[in-house]
């Protein structure tokens, strides 16, 4: 068990994951950056002991989910329509923008399932534990999200 926190090491290990999740929730780089920083600030303010890197990663994901939901609920939040400016390869931007926009257009519950399942590789049981929902609910959400994405991306509607 790791005692205390070496915030730099933890940040380097999980910064991208937290950022991507926050981006999938909030839809822009600035809000995702702020949210990512707040997530790690929580760990700085209240250092925790984790049993391993996977435990550490799961805790950060859940913390990011809660934080993003709070941000989305906040009345003071002004939605920013700007597109992310820090995309790696501008040549692929059109295609990735289309896919990413389709994902960002999904409701929040579908976005988090799509991201955790297809990119982070969590099972539906793990996602259910993180989201506090039954696994069957997670599976239904994934199915609905796939239908919506296929429709949005020009595929056949189920």
């Amino acid at each position, binding site marked *: 068990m790791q005692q205390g926190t070496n915030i730099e090491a933890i*940040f380097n290990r999980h910064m991208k994951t937290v950022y991507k999740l926050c981006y999938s929730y909030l839809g822009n*780089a600035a809000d995702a950056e702020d949210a990512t920083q707040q997530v790690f*600030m929580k760990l700085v*303010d209240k250092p925790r002991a984790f049993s391993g890197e996977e435990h550490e990663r799961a805790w950060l994901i859940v913390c990011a989910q809660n934080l993003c939901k709070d941000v989305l609920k906040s009345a003071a939040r002004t939605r920013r329509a700007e597109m992310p400016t820090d995309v790696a*390869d501008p040549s692929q931007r059109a295609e*990735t923008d289309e896919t990413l926009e389709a994902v960002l257009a999904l409701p929040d519950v579908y976005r988090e399932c799509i991201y955790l399942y*297809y990119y982070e590789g969590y099972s539906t*049981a793990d996602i259910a534990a993180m989201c506090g929902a039954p696994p069957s609910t997670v599976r239904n959400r994934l199915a609905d999200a796939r239908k919506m994405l296929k429709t949005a991306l020009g*595929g056949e509607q189920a």
Partner: protein
Amino acid sequence: MRGVRDHNDAEFFDNELEAKLQAAFAEVEPSDEAAARMLGNLKAREAQVQEQAAAQAAAVAAAQAAAVAAAQRAAQASAASVEETKDPEAMSAEAAQIIAAAREAAPKPKRVIRPWQVIVPAAAVLVLGAVAIASGPLLRNISLDHADQQAAQPAAVEAASEEAGKAANEAPSSAMGDAASSATSSTGSSAGSSAGIEEQEFGLAPSASAEAASSAGEDVLSEDLSAMDAEKGAAMEEFWARDFTAIEGDNGEAYSLVEGAASAPVTAASEVGDLVCAAVAYNAGETASVTCEIFTSKNNPDEFLVSYLGEEVYYKARKA
């Protein structure tokens, strides 16, 4: 990247779309500048937190040191105050004086008359008065009964005396005495005793009138008996002046001892129960089996009462 999927409609999502999603999320990364900025902020926050923790620890240590110093000062001050205190005995004496003065100065409690202290005696007086009024007729009835008994007692004594006189004239002297005594006891004493019982039932002593009536009855009987004794005694003296060997009855019949019959003269040595004659001759011709024995003695040791024919008779046997 991912293990076995546990959803049932995975075929719905083709590999192309999955690859697009992974590519889209892979492209979402913070810039190096942004990452460095976030990391710098985190390190600054971490340093701040550590500084606050150090300051907190220092403050806690200072507070602990201050508390220890204060406790030491308090202990020293307490020890000094103990040394300055007076002798306990002197203090207790002073305290006793103060308490006594306070008690003297304190106002005396006034005597408070409670309501029950007035009501209870008044109720007791009323109850006693009611009992006295109610018992008045009863006491009058008792006194009337007592007067009736006193009036009836002399008449009962008189009737008893008359009966005793009759019995004395008709019966032998001993029987007469018994009758007289029994009459006395059955009339005068009974009347007196009945009155006494009634009076005792009410808790009162026998009255003087009852006692006077009883004593009057006894005087009458004693006079009668003394007269009888005097009369009979004269006859006896005459009889016993003769020889003891001849016996004479109350009615003048002459008895003579049968010759050869056991007889013994009454002597001074004779005792009660001694046989003085065994058979007597009645009227000098008829014999009768009688037993004469010394029955008892009275005041005069020379005179003896003799039992004749099994009955106690007033024959007197004089010493030979």
